[in-house]
């Protein structure tokens, strides 16, 4: 067994890449500024030096070309892990993802596949303005053929990245950048927290994996089920604590395919549910969850499922905290659901 070290989410991702590059010569990693410099957030730092330029390298600023290059490499036997610098900038590559990556196995009846990973930092809370704050995961959950995941802590970030690279499916991992350096409970006025004090900041230095498709119940409870993922896991935990609500908090971790079994069991027990995400409300991934939960748990539900989400506007730079679905809104939604 490998050592345990305290790591930030950035260090955990870096460690996952290191483990993967070390173990499997088919793995390579590239992206804008992700070679020599090690990425604008430092996730690939030190890896070019260690593994050489054929394994870890800079890519031109063309997200479509980055995805396409990864597809070609993956189809030819490699296991590329490409970084899209910000999730906001993944859209030039959207066609290659929707029309090519997701369908290659299907349209070739399995003759060609593209087992690759796209990693990209997402989400707000860092004063990034409308073009460095998006949570665009819902778009990708409507694309059959790709796995979509979002970790909420260093341990999962590493384990899920390793699982993704070892999976035979294309996996898209959204990394909540608000969590890169520490957990965030939704209160921007508190001093920044560090992962070192968090149990999920303890990360094995070696190889392990966290299975895709499995949610985690991060807190058991009986009054209400909170289904969420990414940054909002921490906000949900803190909100429930502040309000003294006996909430069961589910960290979905993988969005497609999602772990409906865990959700249904919980809602069957609590009879009440709030779905939480940072992305805009209309056609957000919360809609899918609510649709499915009401289909499967209709007779157990004692109140309408509520959703707490970002608003249907771009992320407004100066009004960051009026946009971010924070503790107050979560507590209100939980309370209303409990009282309904």
């Amino acid at each position, binding site marked *: 067994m490998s050592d345990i070290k305290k790591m930030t989410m950035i260090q955990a991702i870096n460690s996952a890449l290191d483990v993967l590059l070390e173990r499997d010569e088919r793995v*390579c990693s590239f992206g804008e500024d992700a070679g020599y410099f090690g990425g604008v957030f430092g996730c690939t730092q030190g890896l070019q030096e260690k593994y050489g330029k*054929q394994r870890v390298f800079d890519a*031109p600023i*063309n997200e*479509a*070309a980055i995805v*396409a*290059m*990864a*597809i*070609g*490499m*993956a*189809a*030819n*036997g*490699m296991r*590329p892990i490409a970084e899209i610098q910000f999730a906001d900038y993944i859209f*030039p590559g959207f*066609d*290659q993802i929707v*029309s*090519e990556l997701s369908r*290659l*196995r*299907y*349209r*070739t*009846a*399995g*003759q*060609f*596949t593209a087992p690759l990973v796209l990693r990209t930092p997402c989400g707000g809370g860092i004063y990034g303005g409308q073009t460095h704050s998006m949570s665009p995961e819902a778009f990708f959950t409507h694309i*059959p*053929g790709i*796995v979509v995941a979002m970790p909420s802590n260093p341990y999962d970030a590493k384990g899920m990245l390793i699982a993704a690279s070892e*999976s*035979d*499916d294309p996996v898209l991992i959204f990394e909540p950048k608000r969590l890169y350096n520490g957990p965030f409970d939704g209160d921007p006025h508190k001093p920044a927290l560090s992962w070192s004090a968090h149990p999920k900041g303890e990360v094995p230095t070696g190889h392990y994996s966290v299975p895709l*498709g499995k949610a985690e119940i991060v807190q058991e409870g009986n009054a209400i089920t909170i289904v969420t993922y990414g940054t909002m896991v921490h906000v949900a935990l803190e909100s429930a604590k502040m309000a003294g609500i006996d909430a069961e908090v589910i960290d979905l971790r993988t969005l497609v*395919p999602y772990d*409906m*079994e865990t959700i249904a069991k919980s809602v069957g027990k609590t009879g009440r549910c709030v779905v939480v995400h940072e992305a805009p409300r209309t056609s957000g991934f919360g809609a899918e969850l609510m649709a499915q939960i009401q289909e499967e748990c209709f007779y157990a539900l004692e109140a309408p499922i509520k959703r707490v989400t970002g608003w249907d506007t771009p992320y407004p730079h100066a009004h960051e905290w009026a946009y971010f679905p924070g503790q107050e809104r979560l507590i209100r939604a939980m309370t209303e659901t409990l009282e309904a």
Partner: protein
Amino acid sequence: MTQAPSSNAPGFIVPEPTARPGEAPDFSGLNLNPTSPVERPEPGCEASQTYPLANTLIRVLGDDNVASGPWDPKLSPKTLREGLHIMLKTQIYDSRMLKLQRQGKMSFYMKSRGEEAIAAGAGMALEFEDMLFPSYRQQGLLFARGRDMVDMMCHCLSNAKDNLKGRQLPVHYTWAEGNFFSISGNLGTQFPQAVGWAMASAARGDNTVTASWIGDGTTAEGDFHGACTLASVYQAPVILNVVNNQWAISSFAGIAGGQNATFASRGIGYGLATLRVDGNDFLAVYAATKWAAERGRAGLGATLIETVTYRADAHSTSDDPSRYRPREEAAAWPLGDPIERLKDHLITLGEWDEARHEALQEALSKEVLASYKKAESFGTLREGPLSPTPSMFEDVYAEQPWHIRRQRQDLGV
């Protein structure tokens, strides 16, 4: 290329082809310089040495049916006959498939009439291990690599033996055993993918090159630029072919910017080696492909090749070209018919004659008909049998996840 007419009148320019239906075909603007011989730099040259070639036209077969000049690949009569065989097979296959589509045997078809030399020439010049990322108009590559015609037809019929399980439109072949990638319905997407494939080959050092093809119209897509950029930056062993057949459905090449510069010259801006080739000249296509493959295999990077040709028939079974171009245009095409040209060359060499040609045509027609009979015995789209219905829920992921399994159960299959 001539500069498009400019004007002081307000308004932007919308380029027009030289002739529309009812007008006389006119290819005088294309600068096809059919006679002057074109220099051949060594495949190991600096890319910039090829730039003069972006505005000329590499030809080997002259109007006298004789092969000449520095680009002559000096192929044996046997190889030449093989090329003719592949082209003729392509043509006869295409015609038969079109007829069958008209009879409702398949949903859709696309011919490559007039462009047979492009796939045949490149297909023969490359090694079997070299990877191909074609568009939908290079079916000749499959014949060059010896794919079973019945299998091809089964795909087009979407029947129970379709190797793509009925999941793709006809003509959108995939053939992994033949190192032939999957043809996408989305234009141009394969171009940058081919560079990625080539990079993986280079990293492994497997000594293969990768070749891809797109049309003149498709050069406008962002993926063309992505591919050229990647190919330039990483100097990947890739051959990027632009098949300029003058038309993109109803839009002539000028709507992709082809009136103001050759497509080959796009390569100059990336520092890519660049060739512009008579696409109806089997020998020229062969020679240019060999040149580029040699360059790539030597670790000297990518080549952009424009093959100049003419789409002699409709875009697909969904359009009627007489609505947007003169009916006479194909016949007026100055670079002739690729099949006729190679045939005449062989006859001039004394290595072929009309009787052998007719016999070959007949044999191929028979082969196509027999293949079709056999393929049809495995089903047609309309009559079935198709691939089993539950198979439509497979291969979305490596393993069927719960939600797709449930959907299959929902359908009761």
